[in-house]
């Protein structure tokens, strides 16, 4: 057995820590990209569902989209996007992960936004329209800012669960944090617990940091005297 001399697990971790950080970086980019796609697309879906044409031609596909992406396990979606799409178009594992997870996040975020918009009393829109605001202005200046207050809590949950789910991109070969950890483990044989403990800590710190930012934002949106 060819054991690396004089290197215990702490030394290995210290030596390979930059790789873990790099993996963390990939996870963060994946996270930001999928949340961004989810935000833009989710908002568009929500606006179409609430304020768009009521015809089945528009509403039905949106509903099917939402159901499908919320109903299929993300691992399956990752495989479908990676192996399925790469048959037609050469897609990198990272791009496949961003797409699969971003599209799914859109389904979840559209629901978060929809119930946030719906929680704004109808009288708010009515008063804005009665004063001469167009529908778009009323949404932008009145309904949207109020719904943000309602959306931020559930959105923080979505953020947390997506952080954790980025680790699943591992299965199609994206070299994110979990896969980097796996490399270290194979090269040192054993010490699984130690390595994964460090990885767990990294995920945890990222999660807490993101949550703190979002809570700060939530406090900023809070309105005196207003109870949710």
């Amino acid at each position: 057995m060819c054991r690396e001399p004089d290197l215990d697990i702490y030394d290995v971790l210290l030596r390979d820590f930059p790789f873990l950080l790099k993996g963390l970086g990939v996870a963060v980019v994946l996270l930001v990209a999928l949340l961004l796609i989810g935000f833009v697309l989710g908002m568009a879906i929500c606006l179409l569902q609430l304020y768009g044409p009521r015809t089945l031609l528009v509403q039905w596909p949106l509903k099917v989209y939402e159901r499908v992406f919320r109903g299929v396990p993300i691992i399956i979606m990752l495989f479908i996007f990676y192996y399925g799409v790469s048959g037609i178009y050469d897609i990198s594992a990272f791009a496949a992960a961003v797409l699969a997870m971003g599209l799914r996040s859109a389904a979840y975020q559209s629901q978060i936004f929809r119930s946030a918009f719906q929680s704004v009393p109808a009288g708010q829109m009515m008063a804005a329209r009665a004063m001469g605001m167009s529908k778009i202005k009323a949404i932008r200046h009145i309904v949207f800012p109020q719904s943000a207050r309602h959306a931020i809590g559930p959105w923080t949950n979505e953020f947390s669960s997506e952080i954790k789910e980025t680790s699943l991109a591992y299965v199609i070969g994206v070299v994110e944090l979990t896969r980097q950890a796996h490399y270290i483990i194979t090269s040192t044989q054993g010490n699984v617990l130690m390595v994964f403990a460090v990885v767990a800590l990294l995920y945890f710190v990222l999660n807490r940091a993101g949550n703190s930012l979002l809570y700060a934002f939530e406090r900023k949106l809070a309105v005196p005297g207003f109870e949710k």
Partner: protein
Amino acid sequence: MTDDLVLDVRDVKKSYEGLEVLKGIGFGLRRGETKVLVGPSGSGKSTLLRCINHLTPPDEGRIFLSGEEVLEKNIDAMRARIGFVFQDFNLFSHLTVLDNVRICQVKVKGVAADVATERAQQELERVGLGDKASAYPAELSGGQQQRVSIARALAMDPDVLLFDEPTSALDPELTGEVVRVMQKLASDGMTMVVVTHEMSFARQAADELIFMENGYIIEQGPPQQLFSSAANDRTRAFLNVIAEHG
């Protein structure tokens, strides 16, 4: 047709799923006039007010504001000139009192920010809430919220103000402050249509009282005359009832 009418409502009809709520309503308001609209619950008072600014578009009939017809295609511009005060205030809950009174001046009329602020402050003083500019709606009493909503409507410099039961959502001890503001507006020469059961307001401030029932205007005239000698039995009966309970 009279040219100096600020608001001219002609033969407005409106049905909801076969139920005809307005069956041909017409009335007019000259500049500075206040008319009070009364009638039993379900007679179509709210529907009529909401038809005027197309919150509920009328099925038939025409509405003119200072000689210009209110139509779907100019509706946003027309609404900016028709103040509407709701029963439950509908203040924008995420904005301070000052911003509530400012926002539509800026976003709808394109008034410069500092001009809008000054106007908002003036209107707040006018309703006696100059010191509440930085409060949020949820920090105010119902009466104060309704006065802010009146200031918000006034800041748009409307041709006419429509009130739909502005005191009905308030505790009895808070109606007075709102009624006083409305009386002051009436005597300042504001043009207003007011749906209310506050008969003290009707007596003191209304140039004309309009009694509606079943989608028709049954009778209209100076309030003193209707109170003392309404021609129609149903008008008399209704006014007696609200004089006792209202």
